């Protein structure tokens, strides 16, 4: 079997299956980032109280002062929770956006990689013998 056949077989892999795998790897990293920043959970509980720190309302709603103080406290916990989660959600979404922006770049590099290798090698040889 000639080297040309092997090269063709490799290039077939490089431009077909490997490109598909690149998308799979992109999906893996998206899922990883989503899991690392706990995005589904934080979205689900975005407005929930911080660490479930809430108080039960008094049974007797005539005690307005107590009802109001509980309301304020619970609201405060929800605001704290919202702010903290928003920070992490933003960081997570930003990471995914950056990853998505890098995908075309990675794709271009991958598609050009055989040429880049040849270029680097030739340049290296050129510099060596200058």
């Amino acid at each position, binding site marked *: 079997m000639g080297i040309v056949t092997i090269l063709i077989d490799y290039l077939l892999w490089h431009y077909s299956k490997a490109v598909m795998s690149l998308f799979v790897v992109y999906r893996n990293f998206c899922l990883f980032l989503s899991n690392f920043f706990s995005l589904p959970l934080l979205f689900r509980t975005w407005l929930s109280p911080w660490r479930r720190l809430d108080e039960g309302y008094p049974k007797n709603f005539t005690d307005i002062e107590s009802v109001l103080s509980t309301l304020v406290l619970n609201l405060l916990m929800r605001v704290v929770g919202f702010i903290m989660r928003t920070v992490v959600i933003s960081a997570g979404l930003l990471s995914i956006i950056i990853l998505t922006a890098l995908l075309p770049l990675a794709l271009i590099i991958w598609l050009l990689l055989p040429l880049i290798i040849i270029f680097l090698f030739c340049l*290296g040889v050129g510099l060596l013998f200058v």
Partner: protein
Amino acid sequence: MNTITDLIHKSRLYPVLVLDRLISPGKRQKIIYLSRVIIVVLGLILAFYLSKNYLPAFLVDYLSLVLALKNKILGLLLINLSIFIVAILLEVYFSSFYYLELIAKNLYRSEDIFTMTVGRILYGAKTDDLLVGFLQSDIGGQIMRRLGIGRPTIDLFLATSPSPVSAMLLAQTDGPVIKLKDLAKYLFDQSPAFREFLLSHSAKEIDFLGATKWIVLGIELSIWKSRWWELDNLSRVPSLARDWSYGGTYHLDMYSRDLLKDREVDSLADTPTNRQAEMDQLETILSRSREANALLVGEAGPDKMNTIYHLAHQIKQGQAVTALTDKRPVLLEVSLLSASCKEKNIFEQTILAIFSEATKAGNILLVIDDLANLVAIADKYGANLISLIDPYLASNTLQVIALCDTDNFHRFIESRASLMMLFEKIALADLSSEAITEMLLQAVWLVENNFNLFFTYQAVTEIASGASYYFPDSIGSDKAIDLLTEIAPWATSASLQIVDVSAVRSFIQNKTNIPIGEVTAKEKDKLLNLESILSSRVIGQREAVSAVASAVRRSRAGVRNPSKPIGSFLFLGPTGVGKTETAKALAATFFNNENELYRLDMSEYHGTDAVDKLIGSFSTGNTGVLSTMVRDHPYGVILLDEFEKTTPAVLNIFLPIFDEGFFSDMNGKRVSVKNIIFIATSNAGADLIWELVEKNPDQAISRSVLIDAIVERGIYKPELLNRFDATVIFRPLGEAELAKIAELQLKKLAKRLMEKGLTLEITSELVSSVAKNGADQIFGARPMLRYIQDQVEQQVADKMIAGEIVAGSKFSFIASTLSPTGLEIKVKNL
């Protein structure tokens, strides 16, 4: 024709294999390593060059050479960079084909024909002989090495020119492509010479296929680990902010451990579990919308907790089922709770606080480490535990796993229907030797790395079977791992590099005292001459000695039934004829230690509580004498003295003991007696023996007549007698035998006196006097020791005190009418 070449050419993997052969994995690794080193070195030099404006002047002077060669250095760097990228690309290229073997087991394309592993072997074959191709391949060599067969031995085998094996009939067995296990099975089936070669090196078909599976598993794991970009590998990184959405557990934290932060759980990173079935069951129960509570019941030991650790590890890695995602497994330590709560109301308040917090937190998977203990504490304080925890256990925000030992489950939990309704029980099944082997195979790699050892496949299976066979009271998997970790330092200290079956057996032999290793020349001599060795101690009982010696040889050769005790014998005969002495001689010969004889006087077990005394009582909680004896001394000889004097109920206990090699103690827990020799001695039918001997002194006693008489008298049932390996009849001793015994005992006395510097000359007069006066018809030779003590030793002692015998004296006994004993000491000289 389906030759190897045909197979290769038909495959889609052909170009991949050609390239793989051209640049082998070893070469690729070397290229990656070297080019990386060169890139780093050249990169550093260039970094120096680029920062020349910021460096001190004297350093720049040294860089003059770099300045001159900067283009060449950059050129070299770029060449190496391109080589490095090519090597990495090739790794990814080959890895993707191996990856197909891993994840796409059912997604092979029809043109693939065989897996990459098989392809490598086929492509590497220089001829159309599959056997030679396999044995000369790297993977084939690895498999054979795991079977304890090295390259020189393989070369010697190949030099015998075994019949070639063609690839004509090679086909896949399951799945669309030919895998390594298909090739291995094909070679074993097709080549009788190869089969014999393997068998001659103690490798059976199951070992060959097992070793093949082991090697494939190693390749798969290594490929899997190297693909760090796969989702499973990425998921191992812990997540941020998980606990922000769940409540805190102040009270629970005081009495518990968070398993997600536990070191034990982290240490399981690369440890396989053999409890996957139980873990799947747990996940199913915990995935329910309500009453998702499981009760894990198993033998005392770490198996239950290890299962929980593995589950916690899965949750931590994000590999658990959806219902357990985000859950925080928390281990409630009942002993801590017990130590802190001294009153009923405190206990109740604490329980309520813990369960209320855990429910409110919303992500707690509560693990109660000892439910029976919790129930016992509640009972002690008179608290109603079930009504306290019932509302929480029924909620959909709390999942509970309770652990309980089998014994305690039967004693405290099983009978409480209301408690049982809250949980679904999962019983940890006994592990088969195969399941233990599978787990050990993965654990071995770590041990090999740590101790620089190499385990053969047969050694691993021997550890698995040895663990369950020789250490039956321990939990199988745990004992097997213990055995593995104990063997490793032992092998290192014994300067072993390869741990094979004989090394494992030697280790077990050292540990248990049971001879199981290879029969050494010295031992072989001993075994073949066992009758004469035993006869030197047991006088005049040729039949008994022969029966016992045969049983010992059977056991040592490994042909005994492994699910029965090593041996069970019934010694029938009058008192003082050598029954107990035979048992002692057996302990000394088989276990090399006379002290490994444990005696049970069965006449003590004749009341209504006899069975309870022997195996323990559930109602009183007392443990039994036999249960304790076997647990404390699992290897040895147990002498059941005066066996006929116990009750029929006790005799019935021995039916499964002799037949199946185990009995159940008071808690229903199995006690194994597979490493015990039972000897029951009995005077039953002694009168008949006397009668038969008196009638025909020179004839052998008819076994059938004696046994029929014993059965007829109702002493033993036929089913009990049939369960003994041998019923041995001891003949009454004649004058000649008594004289021999007397001589034997006197020699022992002479030896003791010699240690004090005294020489006792044993004369025929002395021997015949002791034999005549020391033995009697009813008690046989039993009173002889007493006679020697009273008549011989006493006279010696008297003379020593009187100063007539001193160190260096030589004396003998002569017949004397003056002495009341008929013997008189005669001191010969000084």
